[in-house]
């Protein structure tokens, strides 16, 4: 027993230093590898910064040779290939990086983009769907989003496209390509809604309502009014229909009929006494006939119900201006502008209010704003004219006429 224990002690006294020696050797070998990896990485970084991709790639390959599990090196090498449009090699490296270290969103997004370019859409889609919500880099997010849109368009997955586009547009509101994609997508979605309505409910009130709006867009007011009347016949109590019909009737030109419009606004008000649009439109009609007190009553009620409604505030302000009470008009017009800063009529009337108050600088500032927004709206009108389309809303009071 004692002999055994001595022997064991002897053996262990020999083994422990040997093991320590092994550990020491291994550690120094690892130290050497780490040192080389670190050196190659440093070089790669420098070459990447000095835009020498080939040299950077060679350094990264050296890293991978020393440490095949270095996801950073795989990721960076994949990035270099991606930047050189070498998707075949980029995919290998980026996929390896993702295998070693999941949730590297930038790398996964580039992987998805490259997979799509190589025609492997089945793999591209999940990679991009996973990465897209996490991307901070605006450029890469845009590219990933556009690729996803492209993939969804193949599958005709319009709802998913809408979600991606909403996010992209929020981040890039002035991007023409995205604006066009948005136009294309929403046109497709509205077409899909119309088709479904036509298939499932061809005689519904809703389809007549759609047909009315499409007709007015195309400038066929007569047909629009007929469809809107058919819609009301099918569902006389549907909120909003009388106002929509009245809005179509109130405009001048063929199909318009102000007296009928007034009737419809009144019907809308009978159905819902809190119908703000009907109130201010009836105010407009009364004001047009010179019935100032009636107009004022309508506008005041509308403002009371919806204090920041621009049209109601503008209408009421106009009456106060005619009564030479510019202080009250200013408050109302500022309300309108707060809600709709691009409302050129509000700016125009505010400049008039300031004129009455003798505040020349503010008058000028508001007049400049009026001109700025009027020019913008004229541009929009020109666009609609060029497209032979008509705006689906009643004519606004022509501020120019007032200016004269």
């Amino acid at each position, binding site marked *: 027993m004692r002999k055994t224990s001595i022997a064991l002690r002897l053996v262990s006294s020999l083994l422990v230093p040997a093991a320590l020696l092994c550990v020491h050797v291994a550690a120094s070998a690892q130290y050497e590898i780490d040192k080389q990896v670190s050196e190659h990485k440093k070089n790669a970084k420098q070459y990447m910064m000095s835009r020498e991709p080939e040299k950077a790639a060679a350094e990264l390959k050296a890293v991978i040779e020393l440490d095949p599990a270095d996801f950073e090196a795989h990721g960076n090498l994949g990035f270099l290939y991606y930047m050189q449009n070498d998707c075949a090699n980029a995919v290998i490296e980026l996929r390896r990086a993702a295998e070693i270290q999941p949730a590297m969103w930038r790398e996964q997004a580039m992987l998805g983009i490259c997979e799509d370019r190589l025609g492997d859409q089945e793999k591209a889609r999940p990679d991009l769907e996973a990465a897209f919500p996490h991307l901070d880099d605006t450029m890469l997010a845009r590219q990933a989003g556009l690729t996803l849109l492209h993939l969804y368009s193949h599958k005709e997955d319009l709802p998913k496209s809408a979600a991606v586009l909403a996010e992209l547009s929020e981040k890039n509101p002035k991007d023409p390509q995205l604006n*066009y994609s948005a*136009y294309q997508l929403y046109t497709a979605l*509205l077409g899909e809604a119309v088709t479904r309505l036509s298939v499932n409910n061809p005689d519904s009130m809703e389809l007549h309502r759609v047909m009315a709006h499409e007709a007015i867009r195309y400038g066929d007011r007569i047909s629009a009014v007929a469809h809107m009347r058919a819609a009301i016949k099918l569902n006389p109590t549907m909120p909003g229909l009388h106002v929509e019909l009245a809005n179509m009737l109130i405009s001048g030109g063929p199909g318009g009929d102000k007296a009928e419009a007034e009737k419809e606004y009144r019907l809308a008000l009978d159905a819902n006494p809190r119908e703000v649009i009907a109130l201010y439109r009836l105010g407009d009609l009364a004001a047009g006939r010179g019935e100032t007190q009636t107009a004022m009553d309508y506008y005041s009620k509308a403002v009371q119900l919806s204090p920041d409604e621009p049209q109601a505030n503008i209408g009421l302000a106009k009456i106060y201006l005619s009564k030479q009470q510019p202080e009250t008009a200013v408050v109302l017009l500022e309300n309108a502008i707060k809600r709709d800063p691009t409302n050129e009529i509000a700016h125009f009337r505010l400049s008039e209010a300031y004129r009455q108050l003798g505040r020349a600088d503010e008058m000028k500032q508001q007049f400049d704003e009026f001109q700025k927004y009027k020019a913008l709206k004229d*541009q929009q009108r020109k*666009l609609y004219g060029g*497209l032979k389309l008509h705006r689906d809303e009643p004519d606004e009071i022509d501020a120019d006429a007032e200016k004269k």
Partner: protein
Amino acid sequence: MKQKCLLYSAAVLLLQSASLLLLQPVTAQVAATQPAAQAGEPSKEQKIAEHRAKAQRYMAGKQLDAAITELQALEHLTPEDVEVHGNLGVIFFFKNDCAHAVPELRRTNELRDSLWRQMALLGFCEERLGDKENAIKDLEKAFPHTDDAKLNRDVGEALLRLYAVNNDMTRAAGVMTVLRDKNPTDVQLLYSAYQLYTDLANEAMLSLSLVSPNSAEMHRLMAHESLRYGDRVNGIAQLHEALKANPKMLGLHEELADALNSTLEGGNKDEAEKEYKLALAENPNDELSLCRLGEIAENHGDIQAAYDYFSKAVQLRPEDVLANLGMAKAYIAMKQPEKAAELLEGVVKRDPTNDVAHFRLSTVYRQLKRYDDAKRELAEYQKYKEMKDKLRKIYHNLRLHQESPDEGVTDAEKKQSATP
């Protein structure tokens, strides 16, 4: 009125499934675990148990005012009890008393933030009281978690109303996507979708016209609008302008070719063929151009060329309807009806409403002497054709025109099919 209905239905729904919140049957439990009260003066716990039992009874009997009195007494005794606040909130909501419902429901959500139904009710009430900001916040939180279909729809519609007031159409589009997914044939929702997407398309159009009025994108957009309303001549002119502005813009050659590929005014089949070839040179994987070139070759009587184009398209996208239809037609011309039948059966399986596929399948079955099948497919063709004709009529009334080239069974095919 609508909002009242909504509040009512949501409250009924909650009361019906009130197991989530209704007070636990704790009477016996409390009585068993608490020390006996001194004679004449019930302990706090006994009072709690008594009020709870009464509240439960009144709620079950729908005596809401009496239930409120009991719950308010409980609230005084146990101010941190989430169930008490929740039940009070639900009852006030049910009574259309949003002013009182809001503080109770808000407290409920402060005490436990995963009570999605209560959060939805809080949002409804905040909307009614004009507190749009908080209504949006609470309804947005509740929307993804409300499992009940009716409540989920009510929450979604409330969000759509609130976004409309804020003119936040992008967020509205997100909610609409979810609602449409869950209610694909709901007519009211389809109309709302039409309205929203029209607004969004208009917004994108105006935005583009301001940001980049002379861009290729703007000309492309104008081309689509022209084509949509049947003005092919202007549509083609705008696409030429777009190409001038950006000759490398992907997809333009194909769009121009589609516009040209018509027998109607402005159409020019030879030009269309050129443009499809340019599209293909730009992107050899463009299966749509391959299909169109296949159709053109087939019209020229060059069946081999047509077969080559279509088979390449099928290879690229095996499930592409147009490619499979075209290739099947080539097989029919090459007197290989078995192969054609296989492709057409695949198309019908994927798209049972495809009238052209049914028609060609009836032709193929006749060639294969499967007369019953041929008869069935012809009936299917007639059914779906009638349906599509109705749709075409509606589109015609809407003055909307298909932007894609003319498709369907050709007269030549019909003649050929009528031949025994």
